[in-house]
């Protein structure tokens, strides 16, 4: 019982790291532009597919494919931004619908390009076990990308709070007009946050490709997961994303271990709804979501 629970928590923490990678980009764009990018999961998946193509056609490791994925995903992320910036009114809801449509387009483009077959890396190195103290089991991919996730969370947090660009991003998010008066160009910072979201999506995509299997409909599920975590975290809280992601990961793993695997998603969604209704500012955030 104890061993089972311990492994569940360990697996949950590692899965949480991966979930955080998936959610960070969405949370960032949400924090800076008040836009929920419903095509974010598709960006993550796109990075994974680019890595797949690189592995098959160029025979390079998924890690080496990161720059290539980054270029492709960033281009698409900027394209999403350009389209979003053409929305004139009711931005909050219209952007939701626009990115929803873009998600459908991307999903089907991936279906056309890479077919419906299930893909995953053929490099077995990532799948070898990394055992901690003879009792805690994980794969190398999980451990690596858990660490990557920690580094990126710290980096992103540092960037947002310490660097000029990061502070500009935050200034725009809290008061666009005031930021303009201070000499910050909101468009530049918004593009910047989309580019950073693209970078985060790329790492999430590589984690996905080396650790799990991919097929075109997966993107939508990733977006939902990312959104759930963003809500748990609370508006604009970057460390909150990591904690929220781990909470979801651990809840799911414990549900599998002690209740039933079929109820795994149910546990996550109930948690999400409970937080949304009882503590709308999120577990680790401020601000409000009530109307």
């Amino acid at each position: 019982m104890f061993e089972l629970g311990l492994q569940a928590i360990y697996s949950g923490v590692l899965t949480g790291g991966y979930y955080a990678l998936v959610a960070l980009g969405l949370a960032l764009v949400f924090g800076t532009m008040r836009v929920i990018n419903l095509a974010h999961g598709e960006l993550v998946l796109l990075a994974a597919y680019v890595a797949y193509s690189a592995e098959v056609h160029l025979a390079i490791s998924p890690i080496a494919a990161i720059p290539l994925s980054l270029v492709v995903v960033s281009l698409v992320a900027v394209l999403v931004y350009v389209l979003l910036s053409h929305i004139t009114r009711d931005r909050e809801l219209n952007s939701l619908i626009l990115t929803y449509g873009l998600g459908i387009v991307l999903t089907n483009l991936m279906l056309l390009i890479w077919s419906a077959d299930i893909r995953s890396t053929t490099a077995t190195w990532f799948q070898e076990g990394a055992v901690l103290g003879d009792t805690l089991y994980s794969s190398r991919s999980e451990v690596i990308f858990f660490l990557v996730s920690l580094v990126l969370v710290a980096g992103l947090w540092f960037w947002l709070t310490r660097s000029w660009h990061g502070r500009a991003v935050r200034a725009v998010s809290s008061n666009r007009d005031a930021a303009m008066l201070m000499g910050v160009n909101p468009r530049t910072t918004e593009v910047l946050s989309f580019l950073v979201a693209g970078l985060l999506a790329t790492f999430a995509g590589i984690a996905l490709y080396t650790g799990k299997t991919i097929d075109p409909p997966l993107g939508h599920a990733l977006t939902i997961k990312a959104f759930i975590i963003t809500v748990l975290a609370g508006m604009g809280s970057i460390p909150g994303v990591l904690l929220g992601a781990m909470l979801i990961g651990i809840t799911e793993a414990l549900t599998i271990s002690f209740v039933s695997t079929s109820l795994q998603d149910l546990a996550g969604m109930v948690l999400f709804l409970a937080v949304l209704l009882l503590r709308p500012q999120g577990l680790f955030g401020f601000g409000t979501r009530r109307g």
Partner: protein
Amino acid sequence: MQQRTIITIGFVVLFYGAVPAAFGSTDYVISSIVAALTIAGTAVAWALLGNLGGMVSFGHAAFFGVGAYVSALLTMNAGWPVFAAIIAGGAGASIASVAIMPALRLRGPYFALAVLAYAGIFRILATEMEGITRGAAGLLSIPRLPTILGFDLGTNIGSYYVILTIVLAAMAAYAWIRRSEIGFALLAMHETEDATRILGVPSTRLKAMMLVLSAFITGIVGAFNAHHISFLDPDYAFSGVWTVLPIVAAIFGGFRTVSGPFIGALAIYLLDQFVFKSLLPTGHQIILGAALGTMILLSPDGLVPLLGRGLGKKRHAAT
């Protein structure tokens, strides 16, 4: 007003008379139109909540599925007559909508996604509650629509009349509410909620009413579909399709008008099935996504106002 009445009558004659006369003999065209009307019914319900309630929902599949299951199970297990069960299906969806009411306090996007999670929970419950729903195996051979006065409603053409009536009734209800004080108050609430409440408008209660009504209509449509297709399983009953297509249809047609979702659903579904599908056998939904995006960017009010603008018709407030 005169012109409006004439057009409405023309519409009804066209749909009750001309469409069946033209396509009645080709089963698959009628059955595609029935499928399109199923989407239209849900789209009208979605738009009612979106336009009047000011709430964008990403979870109408929940109401669709609950309506379908309630009605199917009542006919199969309790021997209810089909039409009574369909009404009960609508009522069941309404009751299910009560559970999501706390989310009405949430702002737009949060409400949208809370409902999405809520729909996901229903799918899982339907899979897990095997004792009642038969789980993933689903329900086969659900009773079809009955024969009334010698006319078999279980045929494609019979189903066509039933769903057409359901959709038109929903549109009539929508139009009626829109022109009532409740409709005025709801419309006003979008931009000026405080100013509306100050006048005594119980905004949350009105929104809740719209949610219940929207769920009711969606539940009825879902129940109809269960008896028309005669089959249900959790993935199908709570499929994201019942959320996506109505949204695309309502946005495409224009969810701020009563006829927009209807036009949008027929246009989108039939174009998709008969034109896009032959152009692009795999991944033709890409065109749907692109249409949705384009519409939001070019004409957020949809196709109907766009066509209306072409005729030089001026838009009046709340008409």
